[in-house]
């Protein structure tokens, strides 16, 4: 054991003892460790070392399986976390996200007859009426979503349904 660490024993003992005591203690340690060096322990048997190496080699494939399992569990965990976060994100986006463009939304439900009408004046009037109707329905829907109705939710929904039926039955859709 000649490769002993390079600590200065005397300096170390001086942190706790006076210089004279520290020197004596360091000397005690050095002399006793010299005795240990003079009486080496037996060396491990070559066969033992070979067995240990063989045992390590045998253990390693099991170690790989273990690592693979660990990686698989991590991947599954991460995938689950991503799915949950995405679901939460989409839900939040739906609630507080950007409102779709109203004009485009209206355009998609304007009857084909209005689009194809040659009577521009009549079409304009119909379009204005149609837009007002849609806006009214939209406001009522918004009020329902925000819970700003008069406390009688059923009547608001019924009223809304009536309006939708009225629109559906009117000649308005026919242009």
């Amino acid at each position: 054991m000649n490769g002993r660490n390079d600590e200065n024993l005397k300096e170390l003992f001086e942190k706790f003892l006076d210089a004279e005591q520290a020197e004596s203690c360091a000397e005690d340690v050095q002399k006793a460790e010299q005795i240990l060096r003079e009486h080496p322990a037996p060396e491990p048997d070559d066969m033992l070392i070979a067995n240990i190496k063989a045992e390590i080699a045998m253990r390693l494939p099991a170690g790989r399986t273990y690592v693979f399992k660990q990686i698989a569990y991590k991947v599954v965990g991460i995938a689950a976390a991503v799915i949950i976060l995405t679901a939460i994100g989409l839900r939040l986006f739906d609630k507080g996200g950007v409102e779709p463009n109203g004009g485009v939304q209206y355009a998609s439900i304007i009857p084909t007859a209005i689009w194809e009408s040659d009577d521009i004046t009549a079409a304009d009037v119909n379009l204005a009426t149609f837009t007002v109707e849609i806006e009214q329905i939209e406001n009522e829907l918004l009020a329902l979503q925000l819970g700003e109705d008069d406390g009688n939710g059923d009547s608001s929904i019924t009223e809304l349904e009536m309006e939708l039926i009225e629109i559906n039955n009117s000649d308005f859709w026919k242009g």
Partner: protein
Amino acid sequence: MTKSDDLAQIIIGCKNKDSKCFSQVVDMYASRCYGYFYRLTGNNDLSDELLSELFAKLVEKIGSYKGGSFEGWLFKIASNIFHDYLRGKQRRKKLLDVQKKQIESRITGPKQSDNEQIDKLQIQLRKLDTDTRELIMLRFYSQLSFKEIAVIRSEPIGTTLAKLHRGLKKLRELMER
């Protein structure tokens, strides 16, 4: 490349489950770790068993090594293995059997030889308490600094210094009788 760089590369290899790197670690530390176990147990068979257990643990735990003194980390495992051994009833029984055989051999009066010289140290070491013996062996075979040994033993460095000085002084007196 320095010795510590080499060791760092070997440890990376071990973490990647390279059996050659593990073999290198065995070649580097088997002798010192065996000496540590032998001086604590005084028995070749037990030392063989504990050394095998140490390297099996090394394979198992290498992933948890996060840098710092590798020797400190390895000898901490060795120390834990020794404590586990002390706690084991079966193994304690074996130790008692070994002690019994040693007492019997002393009564029959062994001849002096090189091996007996080794045994003399072993016999005197047995006169020290387990903790002091372990501290002396940890210091001698691990080659760790007092600061590192104090960390492994979870005690102040002053306590480690005082215990080691007392133990070594006593051992020296016993050997010089």
